[in-house]
């Protein structure tokens, strides 16, 4: 019976969505999340959005962080003490993990759009970044992103004044706990 289950059940690639801080590894996450939207309802910055059809069938109704709506303030800001999404999740899909161990992904820069890289004057991403070393400045204040140090809070993406935004939040390098 178990062998039958192993044969016919399906494993998927990661969806590439940026999940709320403390979300368990993606394959478990899709099985544990009950799609109730409680995290999206409580998120104080409104950064959590529920995935829709264009994110994939299994992903419908699961939470994702959309940095254009707001940054995740788990590292610094309103959720420093307690992450609301972690407190509220009824299934353990979002686990209560230490602030220091959070890495939801990393920001990615498009230098063709970046104001500083195009010769303008801009320091916004460097100034809002809560992690030292994630963004360093080259000559003429051009930002260099260190994806290993970046925790993926999305503050820089939210604040980026370039139109269209020079920064995107990706799930690259995310660290996620296992179930249990």
């Amino acid at each position: 019976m178990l062998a039958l289950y192993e044969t016919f059940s399906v494993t998927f690639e990661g969806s590439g969505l940026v999940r709320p801080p403390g979300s368990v590894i993606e394959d478990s996450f899709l099985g544990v999340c009950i799609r109730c939207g409680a995290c999206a309802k409580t998120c104080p910055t409104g950064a959590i959005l529920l995935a829709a059809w264009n994110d994939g069938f299994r992903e419908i109704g699961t939470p994702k962080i959309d940095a254009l709506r707001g940054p995740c303030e788990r590292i610094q800001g309103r959720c420093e003490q307690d992450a609301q999404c972690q407190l509220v999740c009824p299934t353990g899909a979002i686990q209560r993990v230490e602030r220091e161990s959070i890495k939801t992904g990393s920001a990615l820069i498009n230098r063709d759009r970046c104001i500083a890289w195009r010769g303008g004057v801009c320091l916004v991403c460097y100034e809002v970044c809560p992690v030292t070393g994630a963004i360093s400045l080259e000559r003429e204040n051009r930002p260099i992103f260190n994806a290993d140090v970046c925790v993926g809070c999305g503050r820089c993406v939210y604040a980026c004044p370039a139109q269209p935004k020079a920064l995107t939040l990706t799930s690259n390098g995310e660290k996620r706990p296992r179930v249990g």
Partner: protein
Amino acid sequence: MQEQNRPAGLKTRIRTIRWASQLAFLAVWIFLITGTVCTAILGRGFAVAEPLGVLQLILAQGAAFSGLGLSLLLGFAVFVGATLLLGRAFCAWSCPLGTTIDLVDKALQKLKFKPFFTRRNPGKNNSSSLVRNGTNKYAVLASALVGSALLRSPVWCSLCPIGTLCRGAIAGAELSIGAQLVTVPAVGAMSLGEKRFWCRYLCPVGGLLTIVSRFNPFLKPKIQHDAAHRNCGACATICPEGINICNERTFARCTKCFDCYAKCPFGVVHIGLS
């Protein structure tokens, strides 16, 4: 005199009371509570959980489901316990989708639209029809559970119009999510065929509750057997689940809406407390 008036007053008012309950719960599920019907989070670490969602999660996780947490299983037990006590009362009194469907039915009624399936053979329950078959919801239920085990995720949650209704309200203006809400009008459109078509033939949550509700001993409609009017079949037309009270034994499908009590043309239907 007063003794006779009281039940008559309750009879006319029972639908109003139910509307009040339905609309209040609609506000609760969508706006007031953290979470949705799927898991209504009541306090820190405790949520009343909708049983189909939890069953799907258990199947999706396989042996690892213990990671789900005790509070969720407790919430599951609360819902199942409530169903044992009250039967499918959830469907008629608080389901947000049921309320939406009822609003559609009400609008159709105001427009003097007669649902298609009730035009021919009024009062007859044509159970041989492939579409209008009460066992369809068990097929949907079984597919949801098997699908969850195979895809390792609660597949019904992605489609569920009840959840979509609540999630759509959370998502607000997001267009991509708004598009998902199409499942709700689709379910509403089924009411063109018959009132509460979705709840009666297709809803897997209703199917699951029906299975549990079989063991609920309370609040069942009864006919006064000294009355001469028997087997007229009016109750089967009135009942949103199509139950003919004279023939029914288990009343597992009964959603405790008490429409039969309020609308029986001969007034012989009573609700037995046990």
